[in-house]
């Protein structure tokens, strides 16, 4: 077993891929607060995620998703959901940015755990170009859905 494999499949990743935090039925328009929805597909392998974000009155974000994919993509969605439960919108955007940068570093970057939390466990993924998309799939969906939720909130304000 190569050490690269161990770096890639950190225990956190294997655990989270089974835990699938946030993996629950989507509410779509049944959601009470302004929300957004995104469907992302990784055409290479067929991995798919449907993810929605809801911006609650109290400033917290709810993330719900369903999906099918490899351990990296499922673990990533799970970690994202965990982080979302503990973070503000601004913090999530910071994490998203840091995560994006980390993934494109091709293994040359140290992860900043103080920002990334459990998402730092994906550092090893950045050495596997074919897997970067797996790790980013949920985050792309999140960013897209969040944009929409924010737009929906705007609209509601203006209405």
């Amino acid at each position: 077993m190569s050490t690269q494999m161990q770096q890639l499949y950190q225990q956190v990743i294997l655990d989270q891929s089974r835990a699938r935090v946030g993996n629950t039925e989507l509410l779509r328009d049944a959601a009470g607060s302004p929300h957004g929805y995104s469907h992302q597909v990784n055409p290479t392998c067929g991995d798919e995620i449907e993810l929605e974000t809801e911006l609650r009155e109290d400033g917290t974000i709810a993330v719900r998703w369903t999906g099918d994919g490899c351990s990296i993509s499922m673990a990533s969605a799970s970690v994202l959901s965990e982080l979302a439960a503990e973070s503000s919108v601004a913090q999530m955007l910071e994490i998203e940015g840091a995560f994006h940068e980390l993934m494109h570093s091709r293994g040359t970057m140290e992860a900043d755990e103080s920002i990334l939390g459990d998402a730092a466990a994906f550092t090893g993924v950045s050495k596997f170009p074919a897997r970067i998309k797996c790790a980013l799939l949920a985050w792309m969906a999140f960013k897209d859905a969040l944009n929409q939720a924010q737009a929906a909130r705007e609209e509601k304000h203006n209405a």
Partner: protein
Amino acid sequence: MFSRLRGDFPILDVRVGESPLSYLDSGATSQKPQCVIDTFVEYFQQRNAAVHRGAHSLAVEATDAFENGRIAAAGLVGGTPEQVCWTKNATEALNIVALGMDRASHGFGGDDAERFALAPGDSIVVTEMEHHANLVPWQQLAASTGAQLRWLPVTDSGELDLTDLDTIVDESTKVLAFTHVSNVLGTINPVDRLVQRARAIGAYVVLDACQSVPHMPVDFVDLDVDFAAFSAHKALGPTGLGALWGKSELLDALPPVLTGGSMITTVTMEETEFMPAPQRFEAGTQPVAEVAAFATAIGYLTEVGLDNVLEHEKELARVLLDGIGQIPGIHILGEAEDRIGTVAFDVDGVHAHDVGQYLDSQGIAVRVGHHCAQPLHRRFGVTASTRASTYLYNNVEDCTRFLTALAEVRPFFGVA
């Protein structure tokens, strides 16, 4: 013989990390023997020029290399050299037929092309095991002409379900397009039976021969198909080259899709006359070095003998099927008897991408994903699978290395 020829493929000596390479992804693209690589070098060092264009000596040599490739290809798949039209890949070849029919349906190509015209009320039949390359172009043709797209289903054992053949392929059917060999299941389809039905109702037969031509003896004339497509890169040849084969009278009548230089007779500012096949489908500068290299590949394959290749692969398929069958928690997709050395499977609780990653860490190269056959995967209730596909340079050791590693996958991911 097969153990000796491994030495002809330099890439097989590459190491993946600390492991030797077992390349089990020839269904995607094949590796190249040194003689094919040498032809590239020799072509660019000694005879590179534009073909069919110059009177100068290099141009004559380049043209010879190019046209000799056509002769070699006709030798491989039957028919005459004029029946072989070079394309960038098999996908282009299949599109030329579907888009040519599209143009015929919209009045291009005059009276000669009318036979290819489709309209509402007509139907196009494909199968549920098609590669996207032999599905999407027909969807597009259906959308463009109002014809209906139908398909033959697949059985649990991974064969074509022909129970309703006579109602699915009926008097309305203008085109029957299907794959000779499934790139996922490895199944060899009964071309005879399908051609017979198509002939009975007068439909054109388009054969996707991507996975047959490299792995078994194929003669399109004997099979009596109307059009066929295959790609060089899956048959020891270079990237950037495929071929469309067709009956001459049909090729000459099919409107060309890509237009430009070298496929015309007379051009005025207002209008253009096209050459007959094969030139009519070969607009612009052609992949000449690639054709030269493919001719060498064909020579190599012919020397080995495609009947021997098939037999060798059937042996490897047996080893793979038996071995996988003994590993708990693995489901093989399709278990047809008549097959090439390609096996796809699903691992309980571990996604294909993770399976492939684990195997790669041991130097074993397989393909993971939907293999450009999403509907087929959906049919088997999965979105992705892992596929091991063999070729003449693989040996039993590749298979046992693969099987040993595969047995470790579920334990590694903690699902067994």
